[in-house]
Every structure is written in C-alpha cells, then in structure tokens.
C-alpha cells in the first residue's frame, strides 16, 4: 500500500526512475516470454540458418539454425537470474560481515575487515578464469554464481559496516543492550531494517557488476557455454564469425538487451539512492513532501 504509493510518486517525479523502470520492465517481460517459446533452447538447426530479421523470425536466425528472438528470451532470463542469485547470495555475506564488524568493533572488526580488504584487492577476472580451468565442466552457472557471490561482497560489507558503526552509538542500541537483547537480536531486529534501503540500492549495482562479469567470461568462453546466456550467444556468434559473415543480428540484439539491463538497473539504483537520501528527495519533490 505505502510502498505502491512511493513507487507511484517516484515514477511521477523522477525521470531516471521512470526510464529505468520501463527498461527493466521490458527486459523482464521479454525474459518471461521464454516460458512460451516454441523452440527448446538447446536444440540447433531447428529453423533455416542466417535468415535476416523479418517475419516469422523477428530478430532473424543464427548460423546454428536457432531463432534469435526466442533464444534471446532464454538468454536474458538466465542472465537476469544469474545476476539476482549473485546479488542475493553476496548480500547475505556482506550484511553479516558489515553489521557484525560495525557493531562489535575491536578485534572482530579488525579480523573481518582484513579479510574484507583482501577480497577487495583480489583481481577478479584472472581468479575466475583460473576457477574455470581448474573446475572445467563442473563449473556450471550455479557454481559460477556462488563463486562470484563469495568474491563480490566486500565493497558493500564496508559500506554497511560504516552505517553500523554509527548505529552502535545511537541511544536505541544502548537501550536494546540494557533491555537484555542479544547481539543477534540487536543486529537482526534493530540494525537490519535500518540498513535495508541502502542494501536495496547496492543490490541493483551488484547485479550489474555480476552480469557484466558473467558476460565478459562467457564471451571469452570461460563459462558453461551450453546454457543460453547473453555472453554465450555472443560467444557462439564469434565462433561462427557472425560479424564477418554479416549476420549482425546475432550480436546486435543480445548487446541491445544487455545494454537495456545495464542502463535500467543503473538508473534504478541511482534514483533509489537519491530517494533514500532525504535531502535530495526534498529538492526533487519540493520542500512540502
């Protein structure tokens, strides 16, 4: 009820939010279309290869005899799910580390933050490529999501820690301690609701980050290339020298789709961030709000 009203207000007063919501909305609807696809995603040579965009193959067909439109619905669905999975898993780690580190302080903070900073300075791409070479076929997109979640929590853990450090000195935290709440209860019931809006905004950015990295890895062929994904489509297009052969639609539509995801999520993250900060919210909606 209240949340709906907030969304409606955001839509009316915030152009970035409106554009972002429309872009992400289109992509999500597109991904949902995969459930009514007439073609199984993994089969090849189902339709005539290399047909340019037109009817009935709206986005054309690939050199492997797949319909680009319907293949793309699967690809974008897997890519979005991958982004959400990484973002959710890494959120759990960063919330636990950030809240605990900020609230406890002392040696807990020092130990957790030195681990945290180690993860911040690790070069991700070479590590992930290494993981692929070690695990090979066992590196499904599920395991890749877990690996990336375990590598991608550190920045936000620091952000959450900085908020938790200020919460620790608030009166309500002192009152909670005095009333006999345990550390877990204080973090879960008093501090978690406080940091959730911030976490929400960084979740969107984390999705962008993980999708971008996954696309990079897939294009280079360092993932499970048989699961359709945006990067995987580009990988196969490159394998069949689509650009040289003039099959531009095989690459252009996945690129367009992933760009819509990036720009949409980025605009949502920015506008929600702005909404969370009361000062910028006031200047946008007007001092009366």
């Amino acid at each position, binding site marked *: 009820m209240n949340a709906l009203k907030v969304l409606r207000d955001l839509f009316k007063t915030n152009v970035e939010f409106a554009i972002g919501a429309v872009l992400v909305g289109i992509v999500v609807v597109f991904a949902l279309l995969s459930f009514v696809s007439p073609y199984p995603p993994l089969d090849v040579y189902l339709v005539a290869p290399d047909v340019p965009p037109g009817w009935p193959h709206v986005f054309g067909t690939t050199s492997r005899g797949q319909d680009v439109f319907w293949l793309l619905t699967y690809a974008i669905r897997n890519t979005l799910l991958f982004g959400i999975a990484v973002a959710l898993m890494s959120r759990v780690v960063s919330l636990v580390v950030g809240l605990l580190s900020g609230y406890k302080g002392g040696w807990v903070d020092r130990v957790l933050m030195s681990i945290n900073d180690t993860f911040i300075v690790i070069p991700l791409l070479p590590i992930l490529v290494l993981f692929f070479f070690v695990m090979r076929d066992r590196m499904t997109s599920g395991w890749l999501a877990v690996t990336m979640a375990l590598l991608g929590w550190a920045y936000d853990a620091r952000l959450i820690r900085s908020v938790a450090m200020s919460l620790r000195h*608030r*009166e*309500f935290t*002192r*009152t*909670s301690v*005095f*009333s*006999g*709440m345990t550390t877990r*209860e204080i973090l879960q*019931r*008093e501090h978690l*609701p*406080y940091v959730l809006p911030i976490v929400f905004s960084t979740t969107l950015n984390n999705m962008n980050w993980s999708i971008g990295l996954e696309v990079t890895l897939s294009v280079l062929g360092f993932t499970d290339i048989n699961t359709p994904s945006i990067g995987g489509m580009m990988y196969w297009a490159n394998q069949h020298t689509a650009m040289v052969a003039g099959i531009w639609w095989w690459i252009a539509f996945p690129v367009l789709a992933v760009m819509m995801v990036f720009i949409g999520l980025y605009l949502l993250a920015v506008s929600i961030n702005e909404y969370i900060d009361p000062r910028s919210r006031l200047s946008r909606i007007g001092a009366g709000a």
Partner: protein
Amino acid sequence: MSPEPVLSVRGLRAYYRTRHFGVEREVRAVDGVDFDVERNQIYGLAGESSSGKTTLIKVIAAALKPPLQVVAGRIDFAFAPNLLSLDADALAKVRWKHLSYIVQGSMSTLNPVRRIRESFVDFAARHLALPRAAFERAVAEHLQRVQLDPAIVRAYPHELSGGMRQRVTIALATICRPEFIVADEPTTALDVVVQKEVLDMMRSIQRGIGSSVLLVTHDLGVHAHLADKLGIMYAGRLVEEGPTTAVFAQPRHPYTAHLIASLPRIGDAAQRQPLEGNPPNLAAPPPGCRFHPRCPLAMDVCKREVPPMTSLGSGHRVACFAVNPA
C-alpha cells in the same frame, strides 16, 4: 521514613582509566559517593556538566564499559544486593524488570525504522513474559496511563511529536513496573510547557507504581518541581544532600548556595555574580575539598583534608569544614 532504603551507595569510586602510547591517564569522575534512596522517593541529583552525574548513574545501572572502572565501593539494591558483583545473566534479569533506565537524549531511544509496537516487543516483552494478546493489552493500557492514544503503537517515531515520543519512552521504561528508575536528563529537549506535563505525568506514574526514581539533570527548576530529596554533586563528589525544600531554602554548602543564588527570580533584575574559576580537571583534582580553589570561605584545612559528609539533622547532610569545623 522507611528504614530500609531501596538503593544504598557506599564509598563509590569510579575512574576512567586510559592508556595511550604508554601514557596512563586516570579521570576520577566519581570519587567517594555515599547516599541512600528510599522507597517511593524521587531523588534528584544536580551538578554542573562534568561533575560526574552521568558516570554515577552509569555505574548505578551497572552499564560499565571500559575505560570506566569501579575502583572501590558497593551498590546495594533491595532487589539486587551487591549489584556490581552480578554476572551478565543475573544483571539481565534485574534490568528493565526491577531497574529501568531512561537514557540521556531519550528522544532518540526509539529506533526510527521500527514501529512503536515493535519497540515495546523488543525492549519489554521478554521481561513481562505475557502471551502476545495480553502483552498488547498491557501496552495499550499503559499508553493510556501516560495519556497517549493506544493507536500510536502503529506509528513510527517520526510521526510523533517530541512530547509524545518522550511519553512513549517513559511508558517503555515503566511498563514492567520497576522498583527503581534511573532518569538521565529526561526532559532536556522539551520546551517548558511540555516539560511540565511530562514531569507531572512521570510523578503520577511513579506514585502509581510506588517506585523510586533517581532523577539526574542540571536543571534546578526540574528538581524543585519533582524531587523529594536533592543531592548536589561537585567534581565527582556529593557536597550536600537534603530534602529539596530544605536545600533550596537553606543551602549550607557554599557551592550549593552559589548555585541557588544564580537562579533567576521573577522581579529581580540584579546581575548574578559568577563564581571565579572553572570546575577542576578530574584527571588532576585539587587536594582536600575539591571546591576550595573557588570557595570564598576556604580555610587552610580545606586544602589538606577532604571534608566528611556530616548530618545536620532531618536528613540534611553537607561536606564542608566551614559548616562543620574539623
């Protein structure tokens, strides 16, 4: 007067001890304090900033955190003998149920992202041990007692006015009907009209449940309005205590006398004479009576010896060699 005090503090010394780069520093924030609080009594504790008021009540609530340490003395509550020896579990049983604490700046005691109902559940539910429905009823009844609409349990703190929030925090602190309430500057951020309402309400709640209150504020007007007994602190020590009316009518310690003379009076436009000097640095307090460098009556003995708290009868005690020659 009931012979058995609810709280008795004896010879309490609590210091802040820090060590930075090998330099040890000791701040004697509370240095030898004795007093009793009786049942159904509001004990007012007054003193200027940095006189050790807040440190004293932190120790009394057993909310000690390094670098604060209790060096000597003992605290006995009627419901918790030798409070400072209790372990964490035993303390958790005493707090809120028997001993509750209205913290300084209690406007922000409420979590801004939790509804009032959730704050009640978080802070008080465990101590009442009632089933959910009965607990909600108890909260509603208690909110009416502090003259609030029970419907506000659905509100967030920012939807309430300052006075309402203050009432909510008082309701939170008193819902378990504790025997002892520590109130640290409970009305600092309120204007005088709301302040008076809140104070009157606090008194009626206190009388209703028959608990004792240790009220700490530097606002002597609040003490005059509320406190049954008044203690004056200076530089970590109690210098005078007595029934509030007696202390106001006949202050005996020169510091108290100056404090009370500094209060504005209606129709009196005369300039108040400030006391020379500043409160002492508690890391290096002066020897003897800590007030002697600023005291107009200072004698030689004041520089050497600490004046003992001496009774003047009817509960009035003062620590001054000018009143009780050594």
